[in-house]
């Protein structure tokens, strides 16, 4: 360092600079606040109208009722969420059976096996799959998947059915599983793979025994996100599954355990919570009527389910977080 008699200029910057810095901070905070406020506003709206609904229909009746007919021609309204819940669960679970295995294996391929060239082509293609409007998936299910299934496996299948819709919801959520899981697997440090190879592990052993366990929290989060997405999916279901709030026939198995024949649910039309909401808004509705308010009760139910899923996903991510 050279000898210097001049002391460095350390004076505080002018007021304008400080004002600008303050403004930037405020701007960013405002954008963050918009998201928070919107979420809070939605929740408050849902809750307040749902409360009005639950004054007429007790929560217990809403949660245990097996008949959903909010707007019948001949009178005799019924607001039981069970048939809708069955529809939503059918779609969600069946879709998960498609998106989780295919998405995970795709992620392993992309992260561990694909050459950089193959990856650079496949990743954008998968992201295109995520960008297709869901109504297109819905028509695809109705126009191609259902006829194909009908012609080959299930001749007794109805034109609007849960299976074709679920398959397309599953396919739609594959990129969500594969992309997030692949990010998690790629984040596993190469040193761990080297350690495995150094011990004489094969590529398969390194992928399944080291990389997947090390990234399990990210993989689990991707599953929950995909499932949450499937729960909320509306367009595919409304187009391909129809809009009939059907209660499947409950049979008694051994020891009186109730069960439902999966074919009865999958091959027939059905209605999910989201579709029920769409149907209500599709009619001539006046605000303040019972069917109108039931929409908010359904929305609240959906909100609670997805919120719980997200909390579970966070807990899993925390619990299995691997510090590497």
């Amino acid at each position, binding site marked *: 360092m050279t000898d210097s008699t001049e002391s460095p200029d350390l004076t505080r910057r002018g007021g304008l600079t400080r004002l600008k810095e303050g403004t930037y901070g405020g701007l960013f905070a405002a954008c963050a606040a918009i998201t928070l406020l919107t979420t809070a506003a939605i929740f408050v709206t849902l809750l307040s109208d749902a409360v009005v609904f639950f004054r007429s229909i007790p929560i217990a009746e809403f949660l245990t009722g097996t008949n959903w007919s909010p707007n019948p021609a001949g009178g005799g309204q019924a607001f039981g969420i069970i048939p809708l819940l069955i529809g939503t669960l059918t779609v969600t679970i069946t879709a998960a059976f498609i998106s989780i295995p295919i998405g995970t294996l795709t992620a392993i391929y992309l992260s561990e096996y694909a050459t950089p060239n193959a990856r650079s082509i496949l990743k954008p293609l998968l992201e295109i799959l995520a960008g297709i409007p869901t109504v297109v998936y819905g028509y695809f299910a109705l126009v191609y998947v259902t006829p194909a299934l009908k012609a080959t496996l299930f001749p007794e299948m109805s034109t609007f059915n849960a299976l074709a819709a679920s398959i397309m919801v599953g396919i739609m959520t594959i990129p969500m599983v594969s992309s997030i899981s692949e990010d998690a697997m790629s984040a596993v*440090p190469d*040193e*761990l793979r*080297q*350690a*495995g*190879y*150094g*011990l*004489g*592990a*094969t590529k398969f*052993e390194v992928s399944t*025994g*080291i990389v997947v*366990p*090390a990234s399990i929290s990210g993989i689990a989060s991707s599953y929950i996100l995909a499932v949450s997405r499937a729960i909320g999916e509306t367009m595919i279901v409304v187009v391909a599954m129809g809009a009939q709030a059907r209660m499947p026939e409950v049979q008694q198995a051994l020891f009186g355990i109730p069960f439902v024949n999966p074919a009865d649910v999958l091959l027939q039309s059905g209605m999910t919570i989201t579709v029920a909401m769409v149907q209500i808004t599709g009619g001539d509705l006046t605000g303040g009527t019972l069917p109108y308010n039931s929409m908010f009760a359904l929305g609240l139910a959906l909100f609670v389910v997805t919120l719980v899923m997200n909390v579970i996903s966070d807990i899993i991510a925390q619990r299995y977080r*691997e*510090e*590497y």
Partner: protein
Amino acid sequence: MSNSTTDDSLITTEVQTDSNDGRAAPAAGTAVAARDLDVFYGDEQAIDDVTMEIPEKRVTALIGPSGCGKSTFLRCINRMNDMIEICRVEGDVEFGGKNVYDDDVDPVALRRKIGMVFQKPNPFPKSIRDNVAYGLKIQDFDGDVDARVEESLKGAALWDEVKDQLDSSGLELSGGQQQRLCIARAIAPDPEVILMDEPTSALDPVAASKIEDLIDDLAEEYTVIIVTHNMQQAARISDRTAVFLTGGELVEYDDTAKIFEDPEEQRVEDYITGKFG
């Protein structure tokens, strides 16, 4: 490097090499041999016509400045370079008399006979027990896994520190303990050779000195080949030292005492005394 440090290192060197003379003297069989080995990364030559025989159950140190090819050479022995797409190997590397680059050699089988310890401790995010048992698991070891885990941890001088916490994560250990865990993991499948790629460079001096003591013990059962940046370390722990200089050339390879006290090549003397590199 300043002059005073260099002087210190030479003093340490001379004192320490004497202690290794007992083991270095008798002739031993050859564990690994390289013949006319050339390695290229794309167009760049990383190893230039190296021929050397590495004795079994001895510690052989590979030293040299950064980029001299010593790590590349180490990774040729267990074919870890296979994973680098642009890497091309010509010539022979013999292990137990067999050229490991022959077409019928499976690198997976080869690596089960040659353990490796890396620069940065890299335990798996699994329990201590599962870390050590990993190599046994993938090799379908049918003996007593727990006994072998204990034996390996003892062999890596870690047993007393971890015997009550075998089920806790290997990542909860300190850096030095993690590196000894990695050594335990490497010796558990009972390999013949252990490759070490600067195993102490990420550790503090106390942890490093424990690893050095351990390496000395390991040489009673295994052939140890160690790459190091640290010349004093090479002098302290190795029986034979190979000096690589820029361009992947093996300049001198001899008993460690000879290399550090009376090297043939002026370039090696310059490197060791800190005039170069």
